[in-house]
């Protein structure tokens, strides 16, 4: 079943009256329970791509469809995790997660938020403020806030980019674990990263973008068990294959 479909999508920015094409002819579809990683040279338009899936930007040409519906603005089916955490410093962990649930009545909202705080392993920190947390914990709050809305599609824009390697490793494993839980949303993960090992580790499919204006130059199925063994020969050969496509 097709969850997400991008058809002949293109994006052109106008900078000082000059047209700068960023993305060209992007077409791909994502099935339920698929996780996708988007990699490519830096500045190629990876972030622009997922911002359009989020409905934060409109494509110049083509369409983005979620479950057959055209996306023009943010919808409740999609949520996103940012590299910069983007927590509100004046709100506690609980209140930050509640921000995703403002549609619900207060009591239900708190219940829901607590459930997801537990799920990312932050129980006991509900009343803490972001300043008191390590970067890894802050991003856990970001994850809890993003999945508390129970989006069908979870977008991640370099979510581990500002974390130290060990913290990033642990958080990656946990997000995979959350995704493997078949009873819960999200049904689709789209991860933007410049880290090719991370892409191979997290994704079922890796989309490789070219230099700007970016096109899809590779769509590679990763046939590994989750979580994969990062020292296995198969893992490393996927990494090599993708690296050679980019450089």
């Amino acid at each position, binding site marked *: 079943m097709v969850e997400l479909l991008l058809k002949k999508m293109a994006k052109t920015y106008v900078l000082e009256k000059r047209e700068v094409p960023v993305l060209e002819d992007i077409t791909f579809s994502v099935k339920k329970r698929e996780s996708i990683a988007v990699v490519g040279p830096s500045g190629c338009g990876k972030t622009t791509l997922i911002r359009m899936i989020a409905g934060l930007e409109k494509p110049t040409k083509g369409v983005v469809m979620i479950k057959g519906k055209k996306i023009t603005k943010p919808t409740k089916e999609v949520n996103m995790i940012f590299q910069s955490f983007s927590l509100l410093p004046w*709100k506690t962990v609980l209140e930050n997660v509640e*921000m995703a649930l403002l549609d619900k009545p207060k009591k239900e909202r708190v219940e829901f938020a607590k459930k997801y705080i537990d799920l990312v392993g932050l129980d006991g920190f509900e009343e803490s403020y972001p300043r008191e947390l390590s970067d890894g914990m802050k991003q856990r709050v970001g994850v809890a806030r993003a999945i508390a809305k129970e989006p069908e599609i979870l977008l991640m824009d370099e979510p581990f980019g500002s974390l130290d390697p060990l913290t990033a490793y642990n958080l990656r494993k946990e997000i995979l674990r959350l995704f493997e839980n078949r009873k819960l949303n999200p049904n689709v993960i789209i991860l933007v990263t410049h880290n090719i090992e991370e892409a191979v580790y997290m994704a079922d499919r890796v989309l490789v973008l070219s230099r700007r204006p970016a096109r899809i130059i590779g769509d590679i199925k990763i046939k590994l068990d989750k979580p994969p063994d990062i020292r296995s020969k198969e893992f490393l050969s996927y990494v090599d294959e993708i690296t050679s496509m980019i450089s």
Partner: protein
Amino acid sequence: MISKRMLLILIIIFLVSSVYLLGFGFLELIAASVFSFLRMFGAYLIALVFSVSFGVLMGHNAKAFKYLLPVMDILQSVPILGFLPVALIFLLSIPIVGAELATIFLIFTCMAWSILFNVIEGVKTIPYTVREVAKLNRIDGMRYLTNIVFPAIYPPLISGSIAGWGGGWYFLVVGEFTTFGGTVHHVFGIGSFIAEQAYAGDIVLSLIGIFALSLMVLLINSFVWSVLMRHSEKFKQRSRADIEFEEGIPDIVEDASEMISEKLENVTGIFDPVLKFAHIEPESKPDKPSYLFTVLLMGGLIAALAYLFLQSGINIFELLSYSGSSIGRILIAYFIALLWTVLAGLIIERNRWLYSRLLPVFDTLQSIPAVAVFPIIVVLLIETASVFIGNSLALEIASILLLLTGMQWYLLFNIMRAIRHIPSRIGELGDLLNLSYLARLRHMVIPLMLPAIIAGSIEAIGGGWNATIVSESIIYKDITFSPETGGLGYLLSKGTALGDWTLILSSLLMMVLIIILTDKFLWAWAIKKMEKYTAEG
């Protein structure tokens, strides 16, 4: 900040001396203070509502920003006392409450601008990723305001309020006591108490009034503003450890406010359509102010000025020479202020002990609204000095001294703040490089102080223009004294006193024009030049 013990001592001195000097009149003084406070508070509430609604609107709505910003910019540059004639003529005609409304309106004009511009700045600094989170989670309408916008503007709102509130005190004396069209307009309050005593020649009673006023300023600063300031500064970097402010609030109040906010959450939704209509949403961002519209506004001002000349028969050379003498006086006062504050800054920079001793002294002195001291300076110079140096020179000096009192603190406090923030590693770097004191001054201390000097200069010159209106037309014992060389402030107060509209408007427009030109060319250039010094290294 002044210590609690020091405050207590001051209160006791005040109580003893005022009871001794005034007897039962002491109660009148207290009542006058309370009246003035209520007036300030009322004006502040209006300024708050005005600034937050316009600030939030202008921070979001591209059109509002485009067209309202140039208007607000021009209104802001009108010297506070320039609103005086307008307020008096329109509001005084309302029976009974007219005088009160005029005073509150004038105090409001002193407070509104710094809050407004800080709110706009606060809205602009909401990180764009936070806005995206709001968009993705569809946090809009009132929820967006209460959860994201209000907390984000809270710290700049408080610092703007402190500046605005200070401006209000400065103006209180004039606001409560002015002559207009030959009649004295006054309302009961501490400001009018000070002015009446001084103009009647009773300096001691006037001083007691100033004492009461300054004490009130100090009390409100240390029990309201500094508490809010600390809370708002920490608000952006909160932790469980430092919410002691909230712990001071009784549980009942906290529970009640939580309940109210929950109820409100359901009710305030009715405003959502209004907010949507006004484009106050996470995705809306202001554009640039309209260049064309600014030019049109300025052109309109110049045309109005030209028209008024032709109507009034005011000699253009007279107006220009009056502008010249006002500018000259402001420049002299500015250089005196610059000289002593920079010297003081350099001395204090070398001597941290002196810094900690002098700060509360400066803080206390600064809390005395400059306008309140005018009468005393006038008496000293007119009564005594004029015997030795002649009347006209004494008046010039009085006028410049009065300007000085309205200008110097801005420079001093900006410089002091900069010195406090000079990182210690800069000093260590100087030691490591074995620099001489002069080299250190040239390459480190002065460059570090420059942005503060520029910021202080902008405020000081603005304060100077505000002060011209009072300093060039000094009332003493029912006679108005003015320097022989005249000035725009003199012309404006003359117009106000005569109720002559062409005189009022042409002098006011001239002043606004000079201020805007200084802002747009001199200060804009200086700020651009300064950018490299403010960069973190």
